């Protein structure tokens, strides 16, 4: 493949979370990296062999890094393949995605890590990083080969949607993974309280007659996780925090120096339990949607920096798994293509600055994994998204690129249209004219 011509993006609104710059500027991409950045007026004299793209004031930001993406590959390809997920990612401005290990078979050994990486190389769209299983076959019993998986290219370990119930196992994973510099991501949910639950306990779920779990189910498990992170000195990523009570525990732990980071899904920032409405299974998520007061607390926590990272929690489920009675329907929503526009709602609503929002989906996750991407700096990979942040869009699930169309955002009016996505300087997506 011929090297693409150097390209200058001029007349852009640069948003760089690393230098905390949000303003007019221009940027040159060459040889797959950012060659030059000009904040302010732009470049005086560009050489004639540089292609020029006029951004017309659109936002040019680092490409998004999504730490939580599920696909169906291997094992459930009709749901989603790495290719269809990568196409969705490119269309959503996501240039790096971390795929979850809960596939069939699970990504719990170096050969599976290698398989994912080879498939991603063949697809050649966005960067794909595998997360490895923390325990063999995600059973929460025996350690997976964390060291070998790290050497094969896995970026963190997690048992995905499964809780690691055995506290002794959890402790040992934290300690062991830490010696390899590996982060453990864990979604806190007390397995007994949440067994069979499809909603958050309260007046609304009780009226609908849905099996429900109390918000305390998250807090109980989180307090254990934090105590063990403190005990071992291991690094913990709280995967998808959703409740106000858990945020308090997180704040206390951070204050006493526990090495903990937290992510929140875009869904929990955008919806509350009432969006279930008349048994709308597209709003059935895991963890379930919470009260509006929880949603507000999550937004505040993101603004304050208590929550570091926003993820799409992309979880494809085909129609046959969603068009079922609510308690039988599969949980989850696809989210790669809507992540950026949904996140921008918080900017348009004047809740969080554009810089802080962009940081939570670029630099913050990149730094957590030690990736070079996520910044607009000379020498950084040219992973970029060009987005008209004011353009109105109506989400139409049927037109999403994911193989599964289960978007909780279906029908929502958002602002933010991705115009172009670049990965290592290659254009991987360009909006249809």
């Amino acid at each position, binding site marked *: 493949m011929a090297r693409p011509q150097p390209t200058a993006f001029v007349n852009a609104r640069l948003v760089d979370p690393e230098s905390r710059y949000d303003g007019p500027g221009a940027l040159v991409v060459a040889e797959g990296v950012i060659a030059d950045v000009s904040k302010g007026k732009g470049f005086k004299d560009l050489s004639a062999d540089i292609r020029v793209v006029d951004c017309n004031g659109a936002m040019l930001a680092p490409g998004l890094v999504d730490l939580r993406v599920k696909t169906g590959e291997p094992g459930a390809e009709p749901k989603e393949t790495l290719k269809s997920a990568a196409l969705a990612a490119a269309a959503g401005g996501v240039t790096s995605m971390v795929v979850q290990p809960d596939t069939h078979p699970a990504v719990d050994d170096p050969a599976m890590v290698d398989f994912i990486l080879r498939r991603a190389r063949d697809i050649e769209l966005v960067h794909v990083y595998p997360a490895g299983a923390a325990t063999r076959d995600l059973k929460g019993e025996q350690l997976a080969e964390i060291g070998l998986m790290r050497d094969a290219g896995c970026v963190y370990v997690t048992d995905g949607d499964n809780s690691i119930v055995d506290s002794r196992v959890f402790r040992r994973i934290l300690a062991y993974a830490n010696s390899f510099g590996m982060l453990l991501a864990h979604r806190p949910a007390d397995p007994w309280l949440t067994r069979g639950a499809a909603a958050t306990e309260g007046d609304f779920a009780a009226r609908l*007659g*849905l099996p429900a779990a109390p918000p305390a189910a998250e807090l109980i498990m989180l307090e254990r996780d934090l105590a063990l992170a403190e005990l071992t000195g291991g690094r913990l990523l709280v995967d998808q925090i959703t409740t106000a009570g858990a945020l308090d525990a997180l704040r206390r732990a951070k204050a006493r120096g526990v090495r903990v980071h937290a992510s929140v899904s875009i869904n929990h920032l955008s919806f509350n339990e009432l969006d279930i409405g008349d048994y709308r299974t597209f709003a059935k998520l895991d963890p379930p949607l919470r009260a509006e007061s929880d949603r507000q607390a999550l937004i505040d926590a993101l603004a304050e920096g208590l929550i570091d990272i926003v993820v799409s929690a992309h979880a494809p489920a085909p129609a046959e798994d969603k068009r079922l009675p609510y*308690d039988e329907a599969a949980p989850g929503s696809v989210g790669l293509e809507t992540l950026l526009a949904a996140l921008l709602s918080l900017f348009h609503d004047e809740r969080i600055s554009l810089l802080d929002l962009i940081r939570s989906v670029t630099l913050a996750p990149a730094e957590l994994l030690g990736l070079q991407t996520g910044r607009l700096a000379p020498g950084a990979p040219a992973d970029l998204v060009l987005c008209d942040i004011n353009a109105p869009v109506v989400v139409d699930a049927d037109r999403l690129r994911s193989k599964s169309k289960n978007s909780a955002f279906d029908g929502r009016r958002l602002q933010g249209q991705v115009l172009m996505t670049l990965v290592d300087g290659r254009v991987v997506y360009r909006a249809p004219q």
Partner: protein
Amino acid sequence: MTEHPPGFNEVRARTFPFPHRHFLSAADLDIVQLGELLDLADSFVDFNRQTSKKLDLLKGRTMMNLFFESSTRTQSSFELAGKRLGADTVNMSPKTSSMSKGETLIDTAVTLNAMQPDLLIIRHASSGAAALLAQKVGCSVVNAGDGQHEHPTQALLDALAMRRAFGAVNGLRVAICGDVAHSRVARSNVAMLSILGAQVRLVGPPTLIPPGAEDWGVEIFHDMKSGLKGVDVVMMLRLQLERMQGALVPSTREYFRFYGLDRERLSHAAPGARVMHPGPMNRGVEIDSDVADDPEISLIQNQVEMGVAARMAVLASLARRLENH
């Protein structure tokens, strides 16, 4: 042409066509619609006591009973209601249909819909199943019980029984006792009785009262004596015996000791209080036979009779709307 029941023509003449296409939830109704449904049902009660009980309001219509959970009384009550109104009725149950072969509810609904039924009566173990079905079919859907959500025709027949026993539902004090958490009957009754102006109490152990019920506009009690104090109607709920497994109650004998209804407990209610139960009863678990079988106190047999009339009223109201398209 069959004679209409006494009062029927008058009710029909002064009422508006029923505004809903489906009958899914008691909470969808308002006081006017409920009043009309109850008047209509009332007119069917006497009619049903005649030797000849056949009408042609649903003549030519097809009604399908789709019961994914087995039920004797509700299914036969709907079947009789349909037949007495002149409909052709078909009963489907999962054991004879392909649901047991892994066909989804939607697939079944689409298949049945292609047979052009006019009314689909559904009972299903999942909350929201009736609403889901209603989105996918072209006919009217009646919820005959969906999971732990609602059983609105039961609430209608309960209201009818109360209205006939007391003259009006407005102002009645009603205690719904027992396993409210898992009861669709309780949810529909809370909604409908509140619309009709009754004061509703929920009585049961904390493990069987749904969290959040304090926001339903009801009073909650955890002991029978204070819960029954001064009430006009005691509505007992069936305790599913598998509840012992989930650490909800320790044993049937302890449950009966603290939450069962016997004559002594009933003495705390208002004089002339009546006892109801949606059935089937666990005698000696939630209710003593002595109370259940006393015709002076118990409305339980009466409820079964009201069931046919109430369902006839629902079917006739929905069918009247069918005429309009």
